[in-house]
Structure formats: structure tokens, C-alpha cells
């Protein structure tokens, strides 16, 4: 995706209510990134870190799942954004330095897609 000169993520997030929900449930986008990065890096072995939507509680939540355990059947959360930390997702470029990969992945997150999933999850 082409980037706007300033705050591309914020521009996309303002297209929906996603940024409002992030601010409400995490305090800020930076807080979300910090928390999800930490949770994802901490996965033991193979797995994924997730931003998900709790339909019952009507809020965003974070989760980590082992191996290929799917988010919704495992936790009930609707998947909005997943970060794969099986070593195959990063090893050739980042070797054992998983934190560098997780920090870098935020540059290529498609927030428009995340916002669409969020809107769909809320609508259901």
C-alpha cells in the first residue's frame, strides 16, 4: 500500500471506528503495539499473536495461540490481526532475533483490512 506522507496508519484508522476502539481498550495505538509485540515475542515455540474482537464483551482483546490453533475456536475472539511467530516466518531474515521481526512487521500491517474485519465482527 502507498503511504501518506504523514501518519498513514491514523489516516486509515479514521475511516472507521477502529482507532476509537483501540484508544478505549488499550489507551493508544502505541500501547496496543507494545502489548501485542510483547505477547507475541513471548510465545514459546511455534504460534501466533493476535488482536481479536470479543463479541460478547464488545471489546478488543489480545491473545496468543500455540502451533496453528485457530483463534476463534480456541478463544472465541474474532481474528482481526495475526502475527505468525513460527520460526519459518522470520528465520531467513532475522535468524533468532524474533523481537526485530515483530517490531518490523508493524510497517506492513494493512490497517484498512483490520478495520474491515472489525466492522464485520461488530455487525454480526
Amino acid at each position: 500500500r502507498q503511504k501518506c506522507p504523514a501518519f498513514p496508519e491514523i489516516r486509515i484508522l479514521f475511516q472507521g471506528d477502529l482507532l476509537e476502539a483501540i484508544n478505549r481498550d488499550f489507551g493508544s495505538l502505541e500501547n496496543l503495539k507494545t502489548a501485542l509485540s510483547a505477547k507475541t515475542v513471548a510465545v514459546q515455540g511455534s504460534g501466533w499473536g493476535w488482536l481479536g474482537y470479543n463479541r460478547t464483551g464488545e471489546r478488543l482483546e489480545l491473545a496468543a495461540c500455540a502451533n496453528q490453533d485457530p483463534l476463534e475456536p480456541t478463544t472465541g475472539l474474532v481474528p482481526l490481526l495475526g502475527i505468525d511467530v513460527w520460526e519459518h516466518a522470520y528465520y531467513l531474515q532475522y535468524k533468532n532475533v524474533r523481537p526485530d521481526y515483530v517490531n518490523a512487521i508493524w510497517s506492513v500491517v494493512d490497517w484498512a483490512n483490520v478495520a474491515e474485519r472489525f466492522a464485520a465482527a461488530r455487525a454480526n
Partner: protein
Amino acid sequence: AEMKFATLFCFVLLSYGSIDALDIPEQLQKLLKIQKPAEEAPYELPALDFGYDSLEPFIDAETVQIHHRGHHAGYTKKMNAILKQWSDKGENEDLLAQPIVDILKNGNEIPIEFRENLQNQGGGFINHAWYWATLSPLDDSTAERKPIGTVAAAIEQRYGKFELFQKEFTETASKFFGSGYVWLCQVAPSNVLQVITFPNQMTPFAFDLKPILVLDVWEHAYYLKHQNRRSNHIDDWWHVVDWKKVEDVARAWNDEGAKSKDEL
């Protein structure tokens, strides 16, 4: 399916406390280079018996180096950090004074705030030591790599012939899902052999098992050279398994001393 059942079975029994975790003989700890250091000194990263490029062309130098200096060293460092935090806390000092292998045998007595983390990091420290301990470079004097001594006899007794054991081990390693290790263990008390997998950094000796050989199938063990082709990694690994070392480990478990080199 049989392997999953065996692992689950061990889980269940351990949780009910009806399996005695084994003592790891001091001699075996020395062989693996995981014995407790003097006084309050931290554990050191076990040194390899060979250079980083010595396992070429089978295991590539970059993998051996990152595996040892990145992953194994990372587990060692983090384990030491947790042990230090625990020491600062001053709780259950009798257990803390034990070698890490004995601490992990008594997982339920590790203070809860350190337990899972220490099992992961300590497991990583031990498991990688086991992996390196049965590998060696090929040299001119090496004929084909086949089991010797008591291990050879046990394999023949259990599997009929080496090739059948190798097939089962290889298939188990290929099918294993996620991060983990494939172990060949003697099962107490009869020492019958069993191929068994454990996920992540779980350690078999906490489950009445005496591991004598292990293959690391975490992706970091092979991804640089083989990418997703784990089968090629398994094939490569067989070339560098040192059956003299495996025999030494088996004898160290069974308290017969590491005599295999002298006897040959």
C-alpha cells in the same frame, strides 16, 4: 498417534505424582557439560566438541553457530537470570542449591512465579546440550555410522534391525507438528527403547525416561539450509550422529562408565 498417547500418558501420570523422576548421574551431567557450577557461579554455555564448520556438509556452519551462540546461549543466559531472581528471593533455597536437572525434576516445588519460565529456559539449556553431545564430524577413520555396544543390542532387541529403528525415528521426526524434539529413550526400569517426542523445551528425564539420543526439530535447527524441507534435515543429521557418544550416554545412565572408547 502412538507418540502423542505416550506423551499424554506421561503428562497424566506426572500430574498425579505416580512417576518417579530419575536422578541424572553426575557422570552424565559432566558428559553433557550441564553439571552445577561451583558456589553461586552461573551455568556456562556448554562448549561444542567441534568447530562450527565441522559438521559440513551435513549441518551448515551458520546454523551451528547461530544455534549454539544464539539459541542455546540465550536459554543459558535466561536460565541464569531466573535462578538469580529466585536466589534474591530467598525461597526454597534447598531446591535452588540443586543442579538444574534436579530442579526441573521437581517442577512443582519451583516457586510459581518462576516455574514455567525456568522449565522453558532450563529445558532449553539441557536439551540443546543433549543434542550437541551425540554429534561429531566425520573423519577418515569413520566407517558408516551405526550403533555399537549395548545400544546396538538394545536396538536389535526392540526393532529387529537398525534400519527399522531408523525408519520409525525418521517418520516420527517428519510427522511431528510444531517445535520440539524427537528422543530415543531407555524406559525405566527395563531400559526398553522408545522413540518419543516432546514439544517445545520439555525434558524427558522428568518422566522416568533415560534419553540417549535426540534430534532437534525446531525450525531454527534447519531453516537456513533446508527451509521447510525438514526431511532433508533429518537425512543430514543421521550422517553426524556419533554412536560412540550415544553408547557413552547410555552407559553413563546405567552407571557402567564411559568405557566404549577404550574397549574398541
